[in-house]
């Protein structure tokens, strides 16, 4: 084996990277080869220099500065992190509120024209109405007159009673109008 081929083994031997058998081979060669002994000596010397040059402790101030830099950076990041939590909670609350509203009817309940009939007893007040009834002021224009009145049967003397039924069974609206369409 050429001595150049021993360089790798000697370099690893100098750093303690060989197993016992390989160590023995290298030591056997070094015992016979002066050139490789010089090479091995230089290798060990440079390694020792390298290690001694780097074993000085670093001043505590460098560690403190490094830690302070990290903590300062984290201090600027944490509010953002917390802001994200608040924004997420707010967004979740909005979604829940929208979902809740979506399951409820929006606006006033639709009104169905359920009954349109003259009262059976014109003089009697509308008996179905019980309790407080809100006065309805219908401000509808007399559009019928502007369109033109179709001649029909003789107008009834009795007022017209319109029963408006809503989705809420507790709310029934009665609309009483005279023969000309005016509110009673």
């Amino acid at each position, binding site marked *: 084996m050429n001595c150049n081929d021993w360089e790798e083994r000697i370099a690893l031997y100098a750093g303690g990277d060989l197993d016992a058998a390989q160590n023995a081979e290298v030591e056997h060669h070094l015992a016979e080869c002066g050139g490789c002994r010089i090479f091995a000596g230089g290798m060990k010397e440079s390694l020792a220099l390298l290690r001694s040059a780097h074993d000085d402790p670093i001043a505590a101030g460098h560690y403190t500065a490094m830690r302070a830099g990290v903590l300062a950076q984290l*201090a600027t990041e944490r509010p953002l992190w917390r802001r994200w939590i608040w924004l997420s909670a707010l967004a979740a609350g909005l979604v829940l509120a929208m979902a809740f509203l979506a399951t409820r009817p929006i606006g006033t309940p639709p009104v169905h024209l359920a009954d349109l009939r003259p009262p059976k007893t014109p003089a009697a007040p509308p008996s179905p109405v019980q309790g407080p009834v809100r006065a309805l002021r219908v401000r509808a224009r007399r559009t019928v007159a502007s369109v033109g009145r179709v001649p029909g049967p003789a107008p009834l003397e009795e007022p017209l009673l319109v029963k408006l039924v809503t989705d809420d069974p507790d709310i029934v609206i009665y609309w009483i109008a005279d023969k000309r369409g005016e509110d009673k």
Partner: protein
Amino acid sequence: MKALAFPAMAPPLDGPDALSGVLEAARLGDLTAFETLMRRHERLVLVTALRLLGKMEDAQDASQEVFLRLYRNLGKVQASQNIAGWLYRVTVNVCHDVHRRRPDETPMDETAEPVSRGADPQQAVTRQEQEKVLELSLRFLSHKERAALVLRDLEGLSTEEVARILGTSQATVRSQIFKARIKVKDFVERYFRRRV
């Protein structure tokens, strides 16, 4: 901010249970616990970064980045895992990034700081010169060679540990270490022969 208070002394972390507790507290956002983690591992990170980069300013920047990455990955780091191995790996990667971004190298002669190591000025100059030479010799190494040499010869890790940190085989690490040692030896011998 209470969490940013600097404790005078970091509590000792003896045993994996204590480390788990500190890790868990740090995961929950306790910066004091995270600072305890930093204090425990700062020598590992800063010294390795300094050996890989050669300049304290760069090493501090790299170390800060390493610990910021640790903070952001606390959820992934398990107490049972080797945190030191994780830190070594991230330190090597961050230093590699810093090395790539770094502009042209400033000659060591211009950046060398005067050091005082005792009463003997001649000894101080010799020591300072040796450090300069060794630092210069490391600059002739590739990033992988330098990382392998620093972890194996200066940090004292085993070849197996170095291979795991660098994500390579032990045979590759041995090859990198061998080449790096030869280059350092040749540079040192050439330098001092020329000076003599």
